[in-house]
């Protein structure tokens, strides 16, 4: 083993979160920064997201995934941030000791003064949703299919059924169609689409691909290769209705059934995870329960916009720089409570309420004509009206530190979504 390298900051993962975190820390004046990724190039999953729709908030223009990544890659190239590619982090301890491996250096140990977790998320697979049937080839997650088609030039199938209407599934329905494959339909267990409405419009409606809500795949057929699937409607308790079962011949079942923050390393380091988001509890600087360990992007919760990932990463990078340069110690922590029709809020804690904070939250169920509010103590801090809110479309409110502390340090902060007429 080589001697331990001790940079000011190590960032694990060089996707949109890691790139923005490293850059933000550098801009804040932090010197020795190391960016680690297991892929052979920077950019993470953005490189396979060749469709457009990224950056409308951060850059005020509409970019493809690779274009969005390129902006950060070009910026990193003009800095002295050290980049360690094709390197897999195997272990992480609470004292921030990283064990990593690559084929150039073998095993390496790194113990940074601060750490940013930016590992992103993983796709849920067939096994996590327990689809009955055989185990043939031809069952693939949407993100894996996206990598096959857009990076490696492999067509995973010719006639597809897509289960789940998350954004990647919708995007892949269009992508498969443009590449000449036939998408029989998209089946969604819930009674509303899992992805953004704009993707239902431009990926399904534009190509006459049917979306079957309140439907699921109840059986996978085929011994060596998928020969078809049985689809069925579901009742209110999401159980299949046997009389509605129908056989659909296909050679591939593509799954877009949710994403899970990737926190194996975080757990090794003893970082406390929020059971609702499956990501670390974080404060306004994106600092986790372990001092000096920050988290950002889809490791924290699955954001639906890369713009939000970038913003959370900038907070984390800045937080890490401050931590190293000022030796700041964190005190206390005010809990941010999800109020009416709010499933969760990130950050979950506020350590310093005098700073401006971006709150990200999701509703529990769709609702029309509502007002989203941030309340500190008894004071209303922000208020935003929405014509329609849906669980797949994340809400965001920026609260100024001045307003948060208008009547002293609040004992509790609540984020709620209320009917516009219920308002006091």
């Amino acid at each position: 083993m080589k001697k331990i390298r001790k940079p000011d900051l190590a960032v694990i993962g060089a996707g949109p979160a890691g790139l923005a975190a490293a850059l933000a820390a550098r801009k804040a004046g932090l010197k020795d920064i190391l960016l680690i990724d297991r892929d052979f190039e920077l950019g993470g999953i953005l490189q396979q997201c060749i469709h457009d729709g990224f950056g409308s908030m951060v850059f005020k223009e509409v970019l493809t995934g690779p274009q969005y990544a390129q902006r950060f890659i070009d910026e990193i190239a003009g800095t002295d941030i050290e980049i360690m590619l094709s390197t897999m982090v195997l272990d992480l301890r609470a004292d921030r000791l990283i064990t990593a491996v690559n084929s150039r250096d073998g095993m390496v140990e790194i113990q940074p003064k601060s750490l940013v977790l930016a590992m992103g998320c993983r796709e849920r697979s067939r096994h996590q949703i327990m689809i009955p049937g055989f185990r043939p080839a031809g069952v693939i997650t949407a993100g894996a299919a996206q990598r096959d088609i857009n990076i490696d030039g492999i067509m995973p199938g010719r006639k597809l059924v897509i289960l789940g209407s998350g954004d990647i599934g919708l995007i892949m329905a269009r992508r498969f169609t443009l590449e000449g494959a036939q998408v029989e339909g998209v089946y969604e267990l819930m009674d509303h689409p899992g992805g953004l409405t704009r993707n239902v419009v431009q990926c399904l409606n534009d190509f006459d691909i049917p979306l079957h809500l309140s439907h699921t795949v109840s059986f996978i057929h085929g011994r060596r290769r998928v020969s078809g699937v049985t689809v069925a409607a579901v009742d209110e308790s999401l159980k299949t209705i046997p009389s509605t079962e129908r056989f659909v011949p296909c050679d591939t079942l593509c799954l877009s059934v949710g994403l899970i923050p990737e926190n194996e390393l975080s757990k090794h380091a003893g970082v406390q995870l929020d059971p609702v988001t499956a990501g670390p509890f974080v404060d306004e600087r994106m600092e986790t329960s372990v001092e000096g360990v920050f988290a950002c992007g889809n490791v924290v919760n699955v954001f639906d916009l890369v713009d939000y990932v970038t913003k959370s990463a900038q907070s984390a990078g800045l937080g890490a720089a401050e931590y190293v340069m000022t030796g700041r110690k964190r005190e206390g922590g005010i809990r941010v409570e999800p109020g009416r029709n709010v499933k969760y809020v990130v950050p979950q804690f506020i350590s310093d309420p005098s700073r401006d904070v971006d709150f990200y939250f999701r509703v529990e169920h769709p609702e029309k004509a509502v007002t989203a509010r941030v309340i500190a103590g008894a004071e209303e801090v922000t208020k935003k009206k929405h014509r329609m809110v849906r669980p797949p479309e994340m809400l965001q409110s920026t609260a100024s530190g001045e307003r948060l502390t208008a009547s002293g340090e609040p004992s509790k902060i609540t984020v709620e979504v209320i009917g516009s007429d219920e308002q006091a």
Partner: protein
Amino acid sequence: MTSKHEYTCINCPLSCALELTEDEGEVLGVTGEGCKVGTKYARQEFTDAQRVVTTTVPVRDGSLPLLPVRSAGTIPKRLVMTAARELATVVVEAPVKNGQVILHDLLGTGVDVIASRDLEKAGS
């Protein structure tokens, strides 16, 4: 006589629900927009819907086998499938710079197709 058409704006994630009112093809107004992009979008959807096309083209001698490309602007929606087929016949040579024109004047639309990223030569 006037009729109404519903559209979902695809220009940003807010996905605004738009309603356009027209009389014999003459647009009388648009409602539901969160910003002026929505008004323009609804009018365009009614007259001749436009989309950005994104796909990949094979790269000779590149560090990766494929290069992601996009139309620099929008083209008529009805041409999207044809454009994808047209682009399936294009091969480029590495190295490629982000923004480099890959195909001029896609299907006579006046819109160029450009590279979406840098791509190095293999082994460089």
